[in-house]
């Protein structure tokens, strides 16, 4: 697992970089806060109401549909990686149609999900 040490290295260096950048701008720049500067920006007029309002549930529905297909993609990855080997190798020869068919079944079931989401109008944003 030695190959993963650079991930740790670059994480530490990147963290350091981010910290240095933030601190640098704190040190270098003058700070003269006024009331107007510290207000939420709303094109120069006094802010109306609060930004903490309830948003459309549609974002949740899209994120949920994303979750579904993300899982599909994650299952597809190991399948795609071994697919060519399975098709070509002698040891797995008898399995190659099973191997192909099972993923098609999986994708069809999830495609039904996409069609459901589609028909229910989750993917329409102009209503």
């Amino acid at each position, binding site marked *: 697992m*030695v190959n993963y040490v650079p991930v740790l290295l670059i994480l530490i260096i990147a963290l350091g970089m981010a910290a240095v950048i933030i601190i640098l701008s704190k040190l270098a720049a003058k700070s*003269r806060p006024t009331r107007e500067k510290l207000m939420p920006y709303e094109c120069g007029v006094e802010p109306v109401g609060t930004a903490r309002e309830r948003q459309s549930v549609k974002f949740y529905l899209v994120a949920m549909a994303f979750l579904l297909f993300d899982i599909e993609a994650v299952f597809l*990855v190991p399948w795609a990686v071994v697919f060519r080997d399975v098709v070509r190798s002698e040891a797995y020869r008898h399995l190659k149609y099973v191997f192909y068919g099972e993923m098609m079944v999986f994708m069809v079931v999830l495609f039904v999900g996409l069609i459901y989401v589609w028909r229910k109008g989750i993917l329409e944003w102009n209503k």
Partner: protein
Amino acid sequence: MTNLLLEWVIKTIVILFILVTAVAYVTLMERKVMAWIQMRVGPNRVGLGKFRLWGLMQPLADGLKMIFKEDIIPLQANRWLYVLAPALSLIPALMTFIVIPYGSHITIFGYTIELHVTRMNVGLLYVLALTSVGVYGIVLAGWSSNNKYSLMGGLRSSAQMISYELALGLSIVSVLLYTGTLDLVEIVEAQSGFHGLAWNIFHYPLLILVFVIFYIASLAETNRTPFDLPEADSELVAGYHTEYSSMKFVMFQMAEYLNLITASSIATTLFFGGWNGPFVGRLPLLGPLYFTVKVLALIFLAMWIRYTVPRFRYDQLMRFGWKFLLPASIVNIIISSTVILFMR
């Protein structure tokens, strides 16, 4: 072990240095390309003393200017998250590059150096993982600013990013069907046949379609026009980074350009043979050169698109991603696997 560690540290620091410089000059390139497309001259004043150097010092001046800008944290903002958010979008963007190979290997003083920082059995998944973590920076920036534009921009942007991440992931799956590995180093090495021109895109013509899907999805992932909805300046001021100023703003910009560079490098690696090219076997130093040229060409393409195509409307964007790109990439997987099953 100590030797290896030292090699990693040096490589990582060099890579980061190159990346930061590259980001600076890609911004200059963007301004020059924009000026060129709009028949203007572009930045050409900033130089060293009397020498103008075609504006080559412009990024440096920009950086200095941004450092000395006042750093504003709005009173109503959520201070911790407000400071954390730009770092959260910059760090994953910096981290991707360690798995991308930019050359085969060179020998200096009898010490062989592989021209990639590390190789992983799950290299492409690592890239995808970092892409998916990158969403947080934007969501949290939008939420913590406590500004309506920021919140709307953050939500829209993250919904857009996750939608196109699907098309991105699924188009990569089609490539995996042909390469049979997630290790980027192996993927590139498999393309080195035929005088370094056995690129995947020449070898498997179906991948041209996959590349188009991948490229569109990666443009959307990096929030570039025609997909720059999160910052749609005519509706949302500046989207999720409306409230950000000074170096925090720069961090978001850096992350955006880093993502563009990463996406172009991944596209190069997957479709255009990575560092492969003619004579690269005899002169390994050509590898990084070929790699850079290909990446720059893809970046140029992105800029060209940016200044040619108008912005999508949000409903069009979602429809395009979910109803066209996603089914298209699934169909691509089905066709590719069928071809592999029956043709080999």
